[in-house]
C-alpha cells in the first residue's frame, strides 16, 4: 500500500476515519422492511441444572427478562494450546491467532458434539473431540475417535463430503491439512487421497467453508490461507511495532498465500480437486484470509462466497450459478470499512436481519476498527450493501475491541437477531505498552436486537451474565443448541485456558422453531444435511429467512440446523424450504417450539426428539 487515502487532509480527519462513521452507500434509512410485533414476553420453561462457578463470587440469579447466559461444564477440561502461552511469550503471529471450534453431530445421536483444533504441532498435542452425552455433559473421546490431528491446527469444518450421511472433518493446519472420513462415528485419515486439499507443508490454512457451488449434488470446499510463515526469516527480522509496543511481525509485509478451492468430483471417487482456475479465482490477488462463508447474497438460488481478509480488503465472490465466481466486493460495498479503507477482517457471520430475505454480513475487525455491519440492499440486478455499523450501534461499542468469532442469531427467540462477538487482543504485549483502552484479555460482547422498525442493537455488556464479564483471549466461537432446549448456546475458544461454554438460560424467551433440512444421500437410505438450503417462515406480520451454512464465525463450524426465533407467534403460517438444488416445498400452520426434520420430497415434517 503506497497511496494515502487522506494524505492531504488535516489531523481532524484521522479521528473521523478511525472513529466516526462517514459511512457509505446506503440509499435508504436503516429500517426493517416488515412490520414488527411488540417484544415477546412469552414464558419459556428453563432447564434446571447445576452451574459450576468459576469464580468465588456467587453467581447472579438470572433476570426475569432479557438474555442470560451461564458459564458451565467443566467437562470441557482441556487447556487450549497455541504455541507458547502468553506468559511464556508469543514471538510469532502464528502463536497469537488462535483456534476455532467445530460443533457437529459426529455420531448422529441428535446432539451436537465438539471438536477443538489444537495449535502446537509438537506431536504431543492433538485435536480433541468431545461427545455430547446430553444434560449439558460432555465427555472427551479417546484419540478423538481417530481425528486426532497432531499438526499445528487452526480451524475445523464438519461437512459430509461423500454424501453418506456422516459428517466428515477437515482440520486446517499450519502444515498439511487433514481430512477425516466418518464411518459410524469413528474417523479415518484420508488426507493422502486428497493432495490438493492437504496442500503443501509450508501452507498455513485458517478457515474453511463448504457448499455445492455448481449444483451437482456434492459439497465443494473453500479453504482460506494466511501467509507464508518462515520462522528463521522472522527471527532475523526481529520484532515489529504496534502502537508503540514491540510485537510479532505480520501479516503486512509478509507473503500472502492464495486460498484453495476444491471441487468435489462426486461419486464414485468423491475426490476434492483443486480448481481455483475453473472457479474464476485465479486472478484474484492473494490475501491474508481468515474465514470464508457461503451465502446467497443476491437470492438467486446459488451460494455466493464472502471471505474475511486480514489487513486488506475482504472479498465477495458472486456465483454465476455454475460454480464460477467473479469478485465484486468493492462494487458491492463489502470490501472496505465505512470510510473506504481496508480493515483487518477476522470472523464473519451472515443472517437476514431486516426480514427482506437477503443476508446481512457482519465482520469482526481489529482494535481501533469497529466491527462491520454490511446491510444488504441488493435488488434490480445490483448487489449492493451499505456499511451501517454505526447506525445500528455496533460501531463505537466495538471500536477498541479486537473481535474474532461472531454470530448473528436470535438468542432470546424474540424474533430479532442478536449479535455475538468473541473478543481478545492478538498481542499479549499490549498490556505492557501505551495504548489506552486496548488490553489483551477482553470480555465478550452480546448485542441484543431491539424490537422495532429500525435495526438497532443494544450492547448488553455484563448484563447478559457471567460469560460476558470475564476477560480472556477469546478466539473462535460457535453458536449451537447443545442442550436441545430450543435456544442457542455458545462455545468460545480461550487461548491458554479451557474453552468457555455459555449456556443460554434466558427466561423470557419467545417461541422458536428448529429445522434439520436434509436431502437424499449417496445410498438409497442415507440422508445428508442440505448445506445451502434456505428456509423462509412467515407469520401475519413478519418474515424470517435462514440458510444452512457449513463454516462461519472464526475458523469454526456452527450448528447446521436452522434456528428461528418467532417472538410471540405460536405458529408459522407458512414455511417454505428452498433446497440447494432449487426445489421448493411449502407447509402451512407449522406449530412453534419444536425441532422438525424436513426431507426433500417428503410432505411430512418429522418431529425430532429434543432430548
Amino acid at each position, binding site marked *: 500500500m503506497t497511496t494515502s*487515502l487522506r494524505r492531504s*487532509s488535516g489531523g481532524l480527519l484521522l479521528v473521523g476515519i478511525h472513529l466516526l462513521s462517514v*459511512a457509505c452507500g446506503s440509499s435508504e*434509512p436503516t429500517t426493517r422492511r416488515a412490520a414488527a410485533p411488540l417484544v415477546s414476553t412469552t414464558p419459556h420453561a428453563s432447564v434446571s441444572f447445576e452451574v459450576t462457578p468459576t469464580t468465588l463470587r456467587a453467581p447472579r440469579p438470572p433476570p426475569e427478562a432479557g438474555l442470560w447466559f451461564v458459564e458451565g461444564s467443566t467437562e470441557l477440561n482441556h487447556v487450549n494450546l497455541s504455541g507458547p502461552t502468553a506468559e511464556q511469550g508469543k514471538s510469532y503471529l502464528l502463536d497469537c491467532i488462535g483456534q476455532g471450534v467445530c460443533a457437529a453431530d459426529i455420531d448422529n445421536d441428535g446432539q451436537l458434539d465438539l471438536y477443538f483444533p489444537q495449535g502446537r504441532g509438537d506431536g504431543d498435542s492433538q485435536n480433541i473431540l468431545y461427545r455430547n452425552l446430553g444434560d449439558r455433559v460432555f465427555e472427551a473421546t479417546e484419540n478423538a475417535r481417530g481425528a486426532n490431528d497432531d499438526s499445528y491446527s487452526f480451524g475445523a469444518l464438519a461437512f459430509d463430503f461423500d454424501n453418506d450421511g456422516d459428517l466428515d472433518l477437515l482440520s486446517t493446519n499450519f502444515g498439511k491439512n487433514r481430512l477425516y472420513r466418518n464411518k459410524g462415528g469413528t474417523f479415518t485419515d484420508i488426507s493422502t487421497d486428497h493432495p490438493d486439499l492437504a496442500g503443501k507443508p509450508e501452507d498455513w490454512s485458517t478457515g474453511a467453508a463448504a457448499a455445492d457451488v455448481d449444483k451437482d449434488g456434492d459439497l465443494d470446499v473453500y479453504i482460506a490461507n494466511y501467509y507464508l510463515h518462515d520462522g528463521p526469516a522472522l527471527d532475523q527480522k526481529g520484532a515489529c511495532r*504496534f502502537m508503540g509496543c514491540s510485537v510479532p511481525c505480520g501479516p503486512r509485509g509478509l507473503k500472502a498465500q492464495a486460498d484453495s478451492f476444491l471441487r468435489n468430483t462426486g461419486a464414485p471417487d468423491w475426490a476434492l480437486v483443486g480448481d481455483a482456475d475453473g472457479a474464476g479465482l485465479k486472478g484474484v490477488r492473494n490475501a491474508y484470509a481468515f474465514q470464508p462463508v457461503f451465502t446467497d447474497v443476491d437470492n438467486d438460488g446459488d451460494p455466493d462466497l464472502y471471505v474475511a481478509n486480514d489487513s*486488506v480488503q475482504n472479498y465477495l465472490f458472486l456465483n454465476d450459478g455454475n460454480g464460477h465466481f467473479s469478485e465484486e466486493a468493492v*462494487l458491492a460495498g463489502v470490501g*472496505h470499512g465505512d470510510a473506504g479503507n481496508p480493515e483487518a477482517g477476522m470472523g464473519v457471520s451472515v443472517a437476514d436481519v431486516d426480514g427482506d430475505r437477503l443476508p446481512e454480513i457482519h465482520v469482526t475487525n481489529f482494535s481501533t476498527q469497529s466491527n462491520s455491519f454490511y446491510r444488504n440492499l441488493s435488488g434490480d440486478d445490483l448487489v449492493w450493501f451499505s456499511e451501517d455499523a454505526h447506525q445500528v450501534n455496533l460501531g463505537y461499542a466495538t471500536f477498541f475491541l479486537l473481535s474474532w468469532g461472531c454470530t448473528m442469531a436470535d438468542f432470546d427467540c424474540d424474533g430479532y437477531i442478536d449479535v455475538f462477538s468473541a473478543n481478545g487482543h492478538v498481542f499479549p504485549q499490549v498490556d505492557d505498552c501505551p495504548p489506552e483502552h486496548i488490553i489483551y484479555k477482553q470480555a465478550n460482547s452480546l448485542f441484543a436486537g431491539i424490537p422495532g422498525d429500525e435495526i438497532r442493537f443494544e450492547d448488553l455488556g455484563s448484563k447478559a451474565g457471567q460469560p460476558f464479564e470475564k476477560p480472556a483471549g477469546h478466539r473462535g466461537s460457535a453458536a449451537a443448541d447443545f442442550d436441545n432446549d430450543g435456544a442457542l448456546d455458545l462455545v468460545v475458544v480461550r487461548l491458554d485456558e479451557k474453552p468457555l461454554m455459555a449456556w443460554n438460560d434466558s427466561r423470557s424467551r419467545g417461541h422458536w422453531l428448529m429445522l434439520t433440512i436434509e436431502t437424499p444421500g449417496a445410498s438409497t437410505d442415507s440422508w445428508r444435511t442440505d448445506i445451502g438450503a434456505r428456509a423462509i417462515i412467515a407469520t401475519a406480520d413478519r418474515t424470517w429467512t435462514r440458510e444452512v451454512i457449513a463454516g462461519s464465525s472464526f475458523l469454526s463450524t456452527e450448528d447446521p440446523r436452522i434456528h428461528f426465533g418467532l417472538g410471540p407467534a405460536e405458529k408459522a403460517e407458512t414455511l417454505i424450504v428452498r433446497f440447494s438444488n432449487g426445489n421448493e416445498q411449502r407447509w402451512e400452520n407449522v406449530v412453534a417450539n419444536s425441532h422438525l426434520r424436513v426431507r426433500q420430497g417428503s410432505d411430512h415434517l418429522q418431529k425430532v426428539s429434543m432430548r
Partner: protein
Amino acid sequence: MTSAPMLQAINVLLLSLLTTFTAYGPTNPSTPHLKLMAAEPRPGKPAHPLSPCKAGDTAAEARSLRKSGRLEEAIGQLKAARGGAPQDLELLGLLGLCLLDAGRQNEALVLLGETHDAPRDIHVLELFRGRLAFEQGDTATAIAHLETAAESPKRPVEALVNLVRAHAQEESFVRAATVAEQLESWQEALGKRLGAQMAEAAGDRIMQRAGRNVEALPRALEKFEAALAKDPTNDLLARKVYDTLVLNHRSTSAFPLLDRLFPEVEGSTERDFQTGRCRVIAGDMKGAEEAFRKALAASPNRSDAAIELARILLSGGHTDEVVQLLSPFAQRGGSHSDVQMLLGLAYERSGHYAEAETFFRRARKLSPQQMDILYHLGRVLIRAGKAEEGRKLLSEFQKATG
C-alpha cells in the same frame, strides 16, 4: 569533523525517517500527516495596528510570541502591522511562517501570491517560501528557497532543520547529514533547543510519512514528547504532543493538556472544540456532540466544529441535520473537502444520488489524492445509473489502494 554523538543523532534522525513498519495492526492508509488545526485567536494581548515605523518592533514581538507557541497572537499582531506596512516583506514572511505553524496552509498560499516579485535575499521570506513549498510536496523548490534562507549571517537554525527534512525527503542523505553537521557545530551555543528542534523535526517527518502507516504515530509521539522534555515551556511543542495523542486515541493523556493549551476563557470556543475531540477519542460521543454544539453556538463560523459535529450526526443517521449544518460552509470559497464529502455522504444516505455526486465531485477536486472520495463517488455513480464511469472509478480506487 562530525562528532560521534552528532553522527549518532543524525543516524537516529535519518533512521527514523527511513524506518518502515510492518507490524501487525489496523491498516489505515488514510492517516494524514499531522497538521495543527486552525485555532481561534488565543485570548491575551489584543492585536493592534502599528505604524510602519513600528514594524521592526512588531516583528521582534511576533518572533517572541511565535517562539513561545502563541501563534494566534503573533498572527493577529502581524496582520495588524501589515495593514500599516503592506510592503514589508519581512513581516509577510514571518506571518507566513506563523500561518504554517498554525496549520493554516490555505491562508499561507494566499500570502504567497504577494511574493511573486519579491527579492530572494530576505531570510525569513525565503524560509517561508521553502517551508510552504515543502508542505506542498515541491521538495526541489523547497530546497532552493531553504538554501537561500540558510545563507543568513545569523544562525539560520530553522532553515537548516527544514533543509535536513527536505534533503531526507529527497533521499539525499549525505546532504542531509552535511546540513545536520552544520547544526551540530552550533550545538553548544544552542544547547537543549537544538535537541528539541531535532526531535521535533524527526517527529514532523514521521507524521508526514504516517499517511502510509498508522503505526508511525506512536513513534512521532515519542519524538514530540522528547522535544517537549528538552523545551518544556514551548506551547507549540505541547500542542504537537497533544495533537499526536489525539491521533493515537490517547484520551487519558490528552485530557490533562487541555488546561495548559486551551484554558477556559470567556469568548473562546477552542476549549469546547478540543474537549469535543478528546471526548470523541474516549468514545463519549454524546459528550463530544455537546461540546461541538457549544463551540458552534458561540462561534457559528467554525467549520472544524461543524465538520466534527456532522460526523457524529451522520453516524446517527441524521442526514437532514448534516445538510442543514454544512450547506452554509459548502457555499463559501475554499471550502474544506471534508465539508463536501460529508454532504455527499448525507445526500447518498438519504437516496439523493445526483446531489451526492455533485458534492463528491467537488470534494475530489479539492482533495484529488483522497481515495475514499473516489470510492464513494464510484459507488454513487453506479446508483445514479452511470455504471460505466462508476466502475472505472472503483477500479481506479482498487488499484490505488492495492
